[in-house]
C-alpha cells in the first residue's frame, strides 16, 4: 500500500527475464492463464482476452472449494515494452471501476516491474482524495477488528 493520491495498491518486483518476455507474459492470452490468479490450486479460465485498446477481458477463477470469482475489464492503454493498463472489476459485485497498470523497465537482462491497482480513477472521487487515506483506513480497520 502506498500513500499516493488515489493509489490503493502498488507492488514492485525484479523479474529474471528481459523486458520483451515479461511484456509478452503480461499481455498474451496463453501466458495469462499460466500465472494469473491467487494460487496453483485455483482453476483459471480465460474466457476472453482481447488485448487491444478498448478490448475486453473476462477471467474466471474457481477455488478448490468451488468459490467462483470472475474478473472483467477493458484494456485502456498498451505501449509495447513499456506499459499495459486495464480496468478491473469483480463480476456480480457492486460496480467498482478500478484501474490496473503494469509498467516494465529493463534492468540489464532483468526487468523491473511496477504494478499499481488504483481504486478510484473517476474524476469526482479523485478530486476528493487526500493523501494517505489507505493508511488511515487500514489503521481504522485494525482498530475496530
Amino acid at each position, binding site marked *: *500500500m502506498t500513500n499516493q493520491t488515489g493509489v*490503493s*495498491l502498488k*507492488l514492485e*518486483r525484479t*523479474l*529474471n*527475464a528481459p523486458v520483451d*518476455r*515479461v511484456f509478452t*507474459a*503480461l499481455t498474451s492470452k496463453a*501466458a495469462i492463464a*499460466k*500465472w*494469473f*490468479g*491467487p*494460487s*496453483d490450486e485455483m482453476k483459471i479460465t480465460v474466457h476472453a482476452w482481447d488485448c487491444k485498446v478498448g478490448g475486453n477481458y473476462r477471467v474466471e477463477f474457481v477455488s478448490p472449494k468451488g468459490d467462483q470469482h470472475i474478473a472483467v475489464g477493458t484494456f485502456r492503454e498498451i505501449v509495447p515494452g513499456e506499459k499495459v493498463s486495464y480496468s478491473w472489476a469483480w463480476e456480480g*459485485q*457492486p*460496480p*467498482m471501476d478500478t484501474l490496473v497498470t503494469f509498467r516494465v523497465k529493463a534492468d540489464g537482462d532483468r526487468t523491473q*516491474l511496477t*504494478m499499481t*491497482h488504483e*481504486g*478510484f480513477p473517476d474524476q469526482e*472521487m479523485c478530486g*476528493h*482524495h*487526500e493523501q494517505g*487515506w*489507505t493508511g*488511515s*483506513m*487500514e489503521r*481504522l*480497520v485494525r*482498530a*475496530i*477488528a
Partner: protein
Amino acid sequence: MDIVFAALSDATRRGMLARLCQGPASIGELGAPYEISKPAVSKHVRVLERAGLLERRRDGRIHRCRMNPQPMQDAGAWIEQTQRFWEDSLGALARYLEDTTPTAADSADDRDPEQHPPNHPTENER
C-alpha cells in the same frame, strides 16, 4: 462498496469515524474538533450514515451516533483480497518466467547470429 470508499475519502469523516471508534458520540461532539458549520457536520454525518458506517439513534433531543464497523471491514477485506491476489499472481509470474527461461534462452541463442561461443566451430576450421 463505492459509497463506502467515497465516505472514507474525506479527512473530516475519517476523523469522525476515528472518534466513534472510541465509543458513541453526539453530533455536536463529532463536529467539535473541526472549524466547520453545523450543517456541514450534519452533511458529513449523513454521508457516513448512507454508507452504513454510522448509525444514529434519537435520545430525547440528542442524536447519538455509533459506528457500524461492517462496511469498513468489507472495504478492508476487498483491499486485502485484491492485494493478496496480485502478490500471489506476481509470484506465479516470476515462477512462470523462471520455468520458461532455459528453453526460451536456448532457442534465442540458436536464432541469434551474433552468438559465437568460444568452443563453437568457426568458418575457418571447416
